[in-house]
């Protein structure tokens, strides 16, 4: 067994060998951190000065242990973790033996830190799952195994710990191992190896145990050294473009890390999601040009012709291109503190591409503890859902099982910038690529000119009773008198028709705003000046609404009336009902209103007459909406194309 010092020749030999990246996970008190600490100790990787600190800390924290060491202190790094005796975040450890180098991610077991466990699992090839021999398989064991499988780990080592506390009983071990093999198979883990261990004393960790002669397999360290964890590599050549290198006029290269297959000079490639093709002219690296390069290498590719390729595009084998779509089904692990709301826009990052995306529907959520499929309208922290995603543009992708780089993505919240989900792509939906934009000859500009106006969307937001509809109504009357073609899209009125099926939950509010924005967009396309009056409490959805429109076509008007004033007015008696608990999810009372951070127009309505505010707003609009009347036809320069 390789313990203690490693000679230099062994070091350079291990350098040529492949690294094993694995994680350890287990339930609270299973002894995971202890096992890992012991593994490092047995591999001879605890330097003397760290050992001295460990001895000191063991005595300080555990007087009852006497001279024994608490190996878990080697791995729990944060103050809070040492105080609470739990693992909160992944800790990475590096060790090597004569035969192999290892990176181990020590993952937290608590359900509330699932996102941190998933972080560790995303870059691992193998998982060591720990169970306490006295407790057997627990809910957490099932959850950890499920998360491992979800993130693509196909090989698990089950370590049944604390065998000394069950009298080294083989029957106990066998029962747990058998049960686990069935469970792992259910969850898609291709390969399971089991072994009995005692972490604090290192039995079957770094050396074989003399108390469990009935077990004749390798100890944990031997097993990790010898296991073949080669991950099947994707065959087809793929490289997401990270950076376009143009140091001078003579050089143009596409830098990136190859994430599938192999590429050779002369190969024909396609730049996706587009259809431009070229041949590879050079494969440039700082150590000299290469004839060919393969998955995992960071290179710069030069093509034989000038193409319009940029960061986020995928360079792929021309004969075997990646699928391209703007809708797909996927598993989502939700990690946001706020719930996932279908139809809300998030930034999706896949490879090096970022695109606005939304969950169009949640097919079901998966109970991470039982894997039961449940109906869901939203996802909460640490929940897994099977969802349909829709994106603003088509992307080149692969299924996660085929190519984790082009099939794994993250979602970023556009307000907080938090990473709120990781997703594992399953397959694309055919319908998206079959629905195309139909070209029409008469466009927005032409339609607007025939009405003598520039179309515009005026979006009034504010609390219920703030005066949005009153002001919008006055503005519309004034514009109408002046001969403009307008429409007032009122939030309340819309709920009698197109949004009849929606209530006031956060999910329904998101969908309510989305539909109103789409309708307003159609009306602007028809050449109208649209006044939208709707509470629209969320910044995220107001931003999504704005993004539907061209620059200068959308004006956010914040009707800023203090809550007390709205409540005092209470024209519809709604605040009284909400205070009495008769109406739920009422904005300002038991549902949030997110104030605009930089509205185009900020109307302070307190102490001002609605007429006065409407007049101010109208004056401001007039300069922008007037356009020369053009009633002849669409035969102008702009529309001739």
């Amino acid at each position, binding site marked *: 067994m390789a313990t203690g010092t490693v*000679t230099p020749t062994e070091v*350079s030999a291990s*350098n040529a060998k492949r690294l094993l990246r694995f994680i350890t996970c287990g339930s609270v008190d299973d002894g995971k951190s202890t096992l890992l600490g012991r593994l490092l100790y047995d591999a001879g990787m605890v330097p003397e000065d760290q050992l001295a600190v460990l001895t000191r800390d063991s005595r300080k924290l555990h007087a009852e242990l006497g001279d024994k060491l608490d190996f878990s202190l080697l791995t729990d790094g*944060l103050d809070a973790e040492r105080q609470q005796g739990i693992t909160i975040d992944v800790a990475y450890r590096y060790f090597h033996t004569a035969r192999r180098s290892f990176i181990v991610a020590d993952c937290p077991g608590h359900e509330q830190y699932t996102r941190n466990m998933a972080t560790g699992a995303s870059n691992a090839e193998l998982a060591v799952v720990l169970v306490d021999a006295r407790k057997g398989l627990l809910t957490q064991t099932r959850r950890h195994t499920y998360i491992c499988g979800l993130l693509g780990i196909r090989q698990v080592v089950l370590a049944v710990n604390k065998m000394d506390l069950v009298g080294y009983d083989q029957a106990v071990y066998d029962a747990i191992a058998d049960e686990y093999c069935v469970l792992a198979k259910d969850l898609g883990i291709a390969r399971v190896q089991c072994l009995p261990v005692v972490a604090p004393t290192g039995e079957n960790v770094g050396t074989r145990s003399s108390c469990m002669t009935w077990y004749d397999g390798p100890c944990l360290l031997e097993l990790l050294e010898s296991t073949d964890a080669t991950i099947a590599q994707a065959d087809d050549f793929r490289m997401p473009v990270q950076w376009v290198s143009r140091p001078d006029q003579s050089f143009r290269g596409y830098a990136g890390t190859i994430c599938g297959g192999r590429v050779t000079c002369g190969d024909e490639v396609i730049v996706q999601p587009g259809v431009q093709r070229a041949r590879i002219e050079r494969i440039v690296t700082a150590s000299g040009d290469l004839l060919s390069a393969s998955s*995992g290498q960071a290179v710069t590719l030069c093509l034989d012709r000038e193409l319009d390729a940029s960061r986020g595009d995928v360079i792929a084998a021309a004969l075997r291109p990646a699928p391209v779509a703007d809708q797909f089904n996927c598993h989502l692990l939700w990690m946001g503190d706020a719930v996932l709301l279908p139809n809300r826009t998030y930034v999706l990052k896949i490879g090096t591409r970022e695109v606005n995306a939304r969950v169009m529907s949640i097919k079901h959520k998966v109970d991470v503890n039982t894997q039961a499929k449940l109906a869901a309208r939203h996802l909460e922290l640490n929940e897994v859902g099977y969802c349909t995603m829709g994106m603003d543009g088509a992307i080149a992708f692969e299924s996660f099982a085929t190519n984790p780089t082009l099939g794994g993505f993250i979602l970023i919240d556009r307000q907080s910038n938090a*990473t709120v989900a990781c997703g594992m792509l399953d397959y694309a939906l055919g319908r998206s690529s079959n629905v195309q934009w139909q070209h029409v000859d008469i466009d927005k500009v032409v339609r607007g000119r025939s009405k003598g106006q520039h179309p515009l969307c005026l979006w009034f937001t504010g609390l219920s009773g703030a005066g949005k509809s009153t002001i919008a109504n006055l503005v519309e009357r004034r514009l109408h008198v002046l001969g403009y073609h307008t429409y007032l899209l009122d939030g309340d009125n819309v709920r009698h028709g197109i949004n009849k099926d929606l209530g006031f939950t956060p999910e329904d509010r998101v969908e309510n705003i989305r539909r109103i924005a789409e309708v307003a967009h159609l009306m602007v396309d028809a050449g109208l000046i649209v006044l939208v009056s709707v509470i629209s409490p969320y910044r995220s959805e107001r931003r999504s609404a704005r993004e539907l429109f061209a620059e200068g076509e959308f004006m956010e008007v914040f009707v800023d009336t203090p809550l007390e004033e709205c409540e005092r007015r209470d024209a519809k008696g709604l605040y009284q009902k909400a205070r009495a608990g008769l109406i739920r999810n009422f904005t300002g009372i038991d549902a949030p209103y997110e104030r605009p951070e930089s509205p185009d127009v900020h109307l302070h309505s307190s102490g001002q007459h609605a007429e006065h505010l409407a007049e101010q707003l109208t004056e401001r609009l007039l300069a922008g909406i007037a356009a020369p009347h053009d009633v002849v036809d669409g035969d102008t320069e702009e529309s001739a194309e």
Partner: protein
Amino acid sequence: MTTQSPQRHSHLDDLEAESIHIFREVAASFQHPVMLYSIGKDSSVLLHLLRKAFFPARPPMPLLHVDTTWKFREMIAFRDEVAAAGDVEVLVHINEEGVRQGISPQTHGATVHTDVMKTLALKQALDKYRFDAAIGGARRDEEKSRAKERIFSFRNAQHRWDPKSQRPEFWHTYNTHIRKGESVRVFPLSNWTEMDVWLYIQRENIPVVPLYFAKPRPVVERDGALIMADDDRFLLQPDETVQMREVRFRTLGCYPLTGAVESSASTLAEIIDEMARSRSSERQGRVIDQDPSASMERKKQEGYF
């Protein structure tokens, strides 16, 4: 002995590719990135990778050295040579207020000196140049709180790290979104060990400061550490004598706070050989790390690299 299936890339190739990928993500995603340059071996590797990542173009970001004014003279000479190469801009920042106050590791102690001349100085420089991404050479194998840190590590507008709510990080898909005033620290060498760094320096023939190689140097023994008397500001304490001993350094920092090790390793091969046999950790020689066990976590929360 089992025969392994032929591997196309070695362990060092994989580490190099991962680091290059990280450099490119930073350059492509941030407005004002910078590479923190501390002149040590990790910085030498970092600079080498920076050049490789953007070859044949020049590195698209400057280097920043936060000079505490107490670095070894050989370090400063080495830095100036790097700057003279001309392919990359080297910015040097000194906390002039600290200099006026006469802050010194010898009279104010390691903690005050580090707070004022390193942590505060770094924050001043990041604010001055409005850097939104700062690349550093820290490795996870160095220290326990580093072992917990993400590769793209978010900092709020006050440069603080919140270890309890780090952004989850998946595959090599990094979240680079921040608001104005916020920043990230990025660690391309996260997955490298000290041994990997030396093996790579050897393989790529990367220049490092000569202080890493053993030779007779003037040192005093102080609290179990060998401190080098590098210039005439060195304050000799009663009953200390300067002796010539054959020593080298495993890490480099401010000379009064950096312990040497007795060694005869004067070539890269000998250093690697010595390290493979070593039973002590790399940061043992650093006086600032000898505080209570979790002190690095505290320093990092306050903005230290």
